[in-house]
């Protein structure tokens, strides 16, 4: 059986890469590789995963320099020869080994007012939202985000400007801006406008290229720029 030469980040931000040799198997995912190392070679290796099927978004890591879900990435897709390098997600503090502290990432969702603000109570009927209406289609295009942090790790603007809200938080805000049931549109547009918000985006498109759900945060951010401009011209910002 052939083997795979795996280089894995160990320690905190001042850590270093360590080499391991892992047996190569058919249909092997990068998460399989990390799990093999922890179960068979080094039980002290810290990493994070839950569902293993691309639903939970907790196993994202940097694989050969690019952020990816490790559970849905086959070794055959990314291995350079028989070598693979696995590191924690970029732009987030490292807790240990392959585990990052996601607090900043999710705090930014809160700063972007990523919480739904209801305008009706449970005693009122369901809001009727036409599936083909423009706002509903805009929501559909962006709603499947599972918060894995891949787009955030891929974004160069996050690296240059650490207080930038980032693609995922802005994408979430965009779904709520288009939610006709939501009551905090103006406050949300004010929260996402400005040099730490949607206007910091240079439309580089790395988030859209890397999103494992094939969403386009780039388009969502462009939508926010448009809506904030309209709100400003109408005196609502």
């Amino acid at each position, binding site marked *: 059986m052939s083997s795979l030469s795996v280089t894995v980040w160990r320690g905190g931000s001042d850590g270093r890469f360590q080499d391991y040799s892992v047996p190569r198997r058919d249909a092997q995912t990068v998460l399989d590789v990390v799990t093999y190392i922890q179960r068979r070679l080094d039980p002290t290796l810290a990493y994070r995963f839950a569902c293993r099927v691309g639903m939970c978004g907790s196993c994202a890591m940097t694989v050969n320099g690019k952020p990816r879900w490790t559970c849905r990435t086959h070794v055959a897709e990314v291995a350079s020869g028989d070598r693979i390098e696995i590191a924690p997600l970029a732009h987030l503090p490292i807790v240990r080994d392959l585990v990052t502290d996601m607090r900043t990432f999710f705090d930014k969702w809160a700063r972007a007012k990523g919480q739904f603000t209801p305008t009706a109570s449970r005693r009122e009927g369901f809001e009727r939202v036409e599936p083909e209406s423009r706002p509903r289609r805009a929501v559909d295009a962006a709603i499947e985000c599972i918060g894995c942090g891949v787009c955030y790790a891929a974004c160069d603007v996050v690296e*240059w400007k650490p207080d930038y809200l980032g693609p995922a938080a802005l994408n979430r805000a965009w779904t709520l801006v288009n939610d006709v049931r939501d009551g905090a549109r103006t406050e949300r*547009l004010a929260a996402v406008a*400005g040099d730490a918000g949607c206007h910091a985006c240079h439309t580089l498109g790395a988030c859209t290229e890397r999103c494992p759900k094939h969403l386009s945060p780039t388009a969502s951010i462009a939508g926010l720029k448009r809506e904030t*401009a309209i709100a*400003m011209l109408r005196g609502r910002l």
Partner: protein
Amino acid sequence: MTSRGEVRLWLLQRASAAVLAICVAVHLVTIIVAMRQGLTAAAILGRTHGSIGWAGFYGIFVLAVAVHAPIGVRAIAQEWLACRGRATDAVFVLFGIVLLALGGLAVAAVIR
């Protein structure tokens, strides 16, 4: 700066970029045509002197540059040098005024 102010700057930069796209194209075509016809500097100035059309065109060009460039450089300074705040904004307002003044002098020299 407030969210409203940032959005206003973004809109101004987009609008000035649209103006510049046209102005730069006209400017380049003008240069190419003038060069291909073998016009001397004196011949070109002879045509532009007293021309309200060229004065208006290059006046708008300079105005768009004076709006567009400081906003863009401000964004770069924020990202690369972490320069923010009112003092930094004042520097870029000054930069815009300098561009406007220098551009205005150049336009005056060509038209007068």
